[in-house]
């Protein structure tokens, strides 16, 4: 029988094959908080292809007093359905949400979803722990900085919580034993924030500046993961793996012995335009098997609207440098960027295919809460689905019909590129 004063279930509804690193951080920090020493935590990492009723069954089987769910645009509809079922089955359980889909629009979420009790806004570790303390002590959740919650029949938001100054104060999910390294689905975070300010992206989560984990912390995590039994590949979730030449050199020096023993890094995100022969060589020393990069669009107006730089020659040189080291390149393009015409999108597809990067990926714009596009959609004549995942419906340049035609055409072009017999030196992966 459990002796916990409070039983907390953390629920990740992830893309198949992934686990929620965010929930790992939340739990590692909360478990280490002495105020919560009598709280029991359990994590369920489930897939987005699971039925919400089945997810609810798994949650309710834990008999939790608190159910915390991480929400993205991809799992939001499922999460709201799970919340509805869990609330009906266990009315006294507190249902808490956090994550990029709900944080920036917390009050709207609570008004639209009566089964949700509170939303953790922004960086979650300290806020979540304080919220659990408040729930345990019977205090008012809406008084916890960073929380939006119900109060007096309405919705109230406490002030924002300042960012964590020293990220090393957040325990590592891996080193603390919360997350076990698993081959292929282990991701490390070495800094928070993003050096770019792309109008469509929430990867920087509004943090505004970069904060880094110490080299000692990152090195300890790498050592632990790379020497874990059965782990032959892992990756980093950092928005830009090659953030600076100095940092890349440090990573290469630390990762090289593991790469030499066959450990590979899959799909790290890079600024491809800053990759030359030297940095491609450093990536290879790191054991990088594949990189993911833009350009997202090559249309001048969309680039300007979204505050993105694009240097055609440097991009091509970066792809070539990676390929010369046997590193696969996944280039990403987005259909429906404000300012882009159909010709711009097709030009982007033609450009990326012409580089023979290895993989070309197309996606349709999702106008995400908290992004500049979300906030200035009307001004940009950008129409999108208000329900998650907030797919674009029409832009000032393309109507709904043209967007859908472009999706079909673009995906067919990418399929034609992908269907090939790779020959050594052009399509081969790092052995």
């Amino acid at each position: 029988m459990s002796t916990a004063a409070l039983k907390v279930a953390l629920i990740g509804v992830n893309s198949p094959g992934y686990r929620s690193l965010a929930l790992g951080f939340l739990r590692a920090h909360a478990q280490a908080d002495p105020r919560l020493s009598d709280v029991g935590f359990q994590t369920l990492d489930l897939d987005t292809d699971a039925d919400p009723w089945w997810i609810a069954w798994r949650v309710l089987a834990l008999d939790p007093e608190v159910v915390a769910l991480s929400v993205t645009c991809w799992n939001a509809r499922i999460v709201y359905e799970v919340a509805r079922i869990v609330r009906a089955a266990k009315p006294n359980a507190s249902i808490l949400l956090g994550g990029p889909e709900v944080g920036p629009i917390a009050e709207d979420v609570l008004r639209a979803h009566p089964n949700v009790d509170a939303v953790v806004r922004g960086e979650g570790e300290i806020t979540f722990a304080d919220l659990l303390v408040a729930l345990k002590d019977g205090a008012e959740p809406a008084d916890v900085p960073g929380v939006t919650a119900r109060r007096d029949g309405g919705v109230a938001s406490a002030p924002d919580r300042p960012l964590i100054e020293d990220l090393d104060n957040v325990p590592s999910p891996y080193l603390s034993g919360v997350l076990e390294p698993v081959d292929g689905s282990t991701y490390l975070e070495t800094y928070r924030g993003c050096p770019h300010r792309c109008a469509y992206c929430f990867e920087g989560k509004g943090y505004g500046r970069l904060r880094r984990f110490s080299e000692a912390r990152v090195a300890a995590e790498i050592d632990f993961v790379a020497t874990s039994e059965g782990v032959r590949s892992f990756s980093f979730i950092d928005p830009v793996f090659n953030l600076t030449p100095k940092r890349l050199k440090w990573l290469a020096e630390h990762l090289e012995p593991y790469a030499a023993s066959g450990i590979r890094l899959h799909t790290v995100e890079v600024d491809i335009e800053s990759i030359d022969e030297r940095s491609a060589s450093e990536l290879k020393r790191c054991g990088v098997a594949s990189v993911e990069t833009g350009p997202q669009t090559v249309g001048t107006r969309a680039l300007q609207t979204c505050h993105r730089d694009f240097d055609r020659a440097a991009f091509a040189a970066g792809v070539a440098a990676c390929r010369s080291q046997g590193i696969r390149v996944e280039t990403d393009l987005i259909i429906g960027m404000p300012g882009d015409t159909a010709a711009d999108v097709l030009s982007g597809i033609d450009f990326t295919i012409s580089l023979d990067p290895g993989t070309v990926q197309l996606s349709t714009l999702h106008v995400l809460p908290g992004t500049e596009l979300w906030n200035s959609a009307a001004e940009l004549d950008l129409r999108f689905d208000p329900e998650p995942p907030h797919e674009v419906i029409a832009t000032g340049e393309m109507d709904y019909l043209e967007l859908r035609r472009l999706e079909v055409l673009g995906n067919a072009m990418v399929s034609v590129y992908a269907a090939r017999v790779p020959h050594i030196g052009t399509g081969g992966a790092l052995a």
Partner: protein
Amino acid sequence: MIGFATIEVGRGGLPSCRLCVPSVPMAPRSSADVVADVRRVAESWAAGPGPNIALVGGDAFAHPGLPSIVSQSVALGVERVRLQTSGAPLAAHGNALGALRAGVRHVDVVLLAGDSGNHDALCGTEQAFTAAVNGMAGWREASDEDRHPTVLTGTVPVCRHTLVHVPAAVAAFARAGAIAVHLAVSAHAAADPALSEWIGAGADTGVVNGIWVSVEGVRPGTVPSLHERSVYALLNST
């Protein structure tokens, strides 16, 4: 856009409207001539990712030297081999998997209509539609079995007799898992007063089923201009 250098493997053997152009059996070119063309293309390739070849002119599976042509093409560095066929040979035991394992990644099937009654009547061959559908299913199954990315596309030769069958033919390709259909409109069909309705319906049938429809041989404005764009480019290799 990916370019394919066209290399003729012969003439005939593909479905055609018997009311317009009587179909003829495949008359193959010599394998040596075909491979010589492949070698020339591979050695001088400068058209982006590739080299890529499209074996055209007739049903490639009716060429007795096809296995050798494909394997030599791959040995010469060809990355994408595209074949055109009636589809029926792909249903024969082992053909689809054999072609895939030899290096074929792109198959283009010719249909004249979207049901057996009309397709068979138009091409003059009983059970031709069923055989084509079974062949396309065989190609998809082989692709799934070997986990190779492959492409299935379709071609509809649009004459005044096949025009009314375009939407159903596109739907048949969509059901078979094709990613794109090319409508090659004849001059006679292009003058048909009902052209834009049938071609437009075919294009829309494609979009709602997630399959791209490109149109060749019509006046600008017949369909939204995006449909003038194919998912690949056939390049003259001579």
